[in-house]
């Protein structure tokens, strides 16, 4: 009897060990480039590519100090710019997308289905097709070389993906809550502010996090619309370190890349559980 029970137990244990070994091996393969980057940022320039060992022999902060001040203005300014744009974009998306999503999910108005289809269609429109017309538009508005083209559209609910996400979420909130509020004398605005908004917590968090990460990582529109060195953002400034026509400062590039990951990393660490929650409750499960 005991032998019969022991055999499958042992086999299960070996299988679990093997699975873990395979997973750890996979993790190492995935983590190696990251380790290499972090390690490289502490090495001497000439050691970065000549040593396979990702761990530096000593902690040398030279690349960090040189990299931070290599550009004019320094990275302090670029971080301030990036953060400002990201925070404004988050605010814009949260305000505009919830309002729009509420209208699509709960209100009845003429042409709702057509507008909804257009909104969904705009997700599928490639950004490249819009690039030049948008640039011309913003140029004639006199907005080129300001942060307005990067921020104002967010306040006009142009991120269709988040609207769609929220519509799906609001649809799962029982209508009986709306009706109860209506009986208590609430209008459409009050239903939104007292019933819907407080209940959309998880999806709001998801929107905030993704907007932050996507805006912070956004490269091309920041490149196109911001021309003066003093208004540049972190991703655009990072590209300056690699140059095919001249010197590439790999040590400084790696050091600044490590630092540029920090904000995204912090946001992700703090909110990782909420992201999963937000996605899982919106019916967007694969």
């Amino acid at each position, binding site marked *: 009897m005991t032998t019969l029970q022991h055999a499958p137990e042992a086999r299960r244990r070996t299988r679990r060990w093997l699975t873990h070994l395979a997973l750890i091996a996979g993790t190492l393969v995935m983590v190696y480039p990251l380790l290499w980057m972090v390690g490289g940022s502490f090495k001497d*320039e*000439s050691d*970065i*590519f*000549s040593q396979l060992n990702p761990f530096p022999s000593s902690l040398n902060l030279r690349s960090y100090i040189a990299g931070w001040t*290599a*550009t*004019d203005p320094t990275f302090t300014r670029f971080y301030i710019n990036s953060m*400002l744009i990201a*925070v*404004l974009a988050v*605010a*814009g998306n949260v*305000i505009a997308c919830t309002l729009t999503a509420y209208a699509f999910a709960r209100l009845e108005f003429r042409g709702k289905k057509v507008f909804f289809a257009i909104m969904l269609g705009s997700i599928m429109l490639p950004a490249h097709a819009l*690039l*030049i017309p948008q*640039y*011309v538009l913003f*140029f004639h508005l*006199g907005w*080129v*070389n*300001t*942060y*307005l083209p990067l*921020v*104002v559209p967010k*306040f006009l609910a142009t991120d269709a993906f988040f609207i769609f996400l929220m519509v799906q979420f609001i649809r799962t909130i029982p209508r009986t809550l709306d009706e109860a509020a209506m009986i208590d004398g609430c209008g459409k605005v009050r239903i939104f*502010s007292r019933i819907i908004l407080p209940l959309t917590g998880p999806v709001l968090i998801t929107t905030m996090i993704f907007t932050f990460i996507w805006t912070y990582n956004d490269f*091309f529109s920041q*490149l*196109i619309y911001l*021309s*003066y*060195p*003093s*208004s540049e953002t972190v991703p*655009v400034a990072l*590209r*300056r*370190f*690699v*140059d*095919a*026509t*001249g*010197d*590439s*400062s*790999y040590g400084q590039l790696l050091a600044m890349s490590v630092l540029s990951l920090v904000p995204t990393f912090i946001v992700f660490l703090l909110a990782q559980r909420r992201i999963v929650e937000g996605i899982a409750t919106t019916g967007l499960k694969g």
Partner: protein
Amino acid sequence: MTTQLDRRRFLQAGLAAGVLAPLLAACNLDPAAKEAKNSVRFSSYGDPTKLGLRSKLADQYTSSHQNVKMVFEGTATAEYWDKLATQMAGGNAPDVINIDAPRIGQYGAAGALQSLDKYTPDPIDTKPIDHNLLVQGQLKGEQFGIPVAMSTYSMGYDVTVLDQLGLEHPNETWTWADFAALANQIRLKSGKKIYGAEDPSGDTASLQIFLRGKGQDLYKDNTLAFTDAALTEWFEYWAALRATGGTIPADIAAQSKYGDWPNSPLVKKQAALAHIQTPNLKGGFQDLTKNTIDITLPPRNAKDGNCGTFPAPSSFLSLNAKSQRSDDAAAFINWFANGAEAAKTLRLISGPPASSAGRDVLLKGSDLSASEKQVLAYTDLALKNSAAPPQASPAASTAVGDLLLKVSQDIAFNKISIKQAVPKFMADAGKTLDGK
């Protein structure tokens, strides 16, 4: 209940105010945007050092010229062209545009750049600039770009390795036969520890030097300007070296592309001979290795034959066709290209100044570094030994370059014989150039 509602309303109002205040502030975030209406915009590309220096140059010009304000816009090289294309399409391109030869062809032909002929010789003086450089900024005889610095093909060698092995340094009039002999010596004397040279058989710039030494060239009037026999000779030359270890084997060669400095065989000490474009000598090679690197003229076909090298502008300055302040912009172009102050600020950052006035200023200075001296001396040598530059490369030249690289690798990996490869390449490249 009521207090709760009040607090919520308070928070909402606070949030709205918090959002709107910076948004309103953002309208005035960049004061430079307003000044741009009565200033001259100058855009440039490059690494942080280059951009920093050119930005400084714009400031210097502003402070020494009363009624002009230069506004600098700098972008990393890879993204500069996308941004310029967007600005051009949107009608908002800068007045003075830092540009390269293929884009002068593209934008000049499209009417987006101004012909500079009406600004020469005043304010733009082109006399101090070598004729062979100037013609490369022309379209159908009209000057569309003023070369500011130049880059020259040179043959680099590892002085430390050659000295250790007791081998003589190459001299200016060496031939391809001398090159092969030296490469094989390096392999033998090092006890097969290192290979002789890099393998440039798939590199169009190197092939061009070889062809020009034979009186041929890569392209003429948008067709191939070399014979099957010349290409066969080129591939056989490198195949022979590959067999003796005079050049790196196919697998190493496939991993080292010119411009990927840390992987270059010279930096990795896998080989002691490799071609170097002069602006890359310091940052791309010397700074990445502890060995000493020097440069000389590339090999010739025969001792008394022509050297295939020619000076190539590393970049140009062009004038936007829609510029509102063309005269001020043209004056700035002259100051940048010929001025002493500009030469002192820029030094050799993109190669030696194209203008002899600029080079003289540097040579008179006493603070030249070792690699600056090497490059200036070499540039003098190369200018003396160079013939007329080739015609501007056709639009499909990048695609032809890819074809050459592919076929050279197929040969190196023994996938195809040289006899089969040459006619195949000539046919494929011909089709590519015809746009088929």
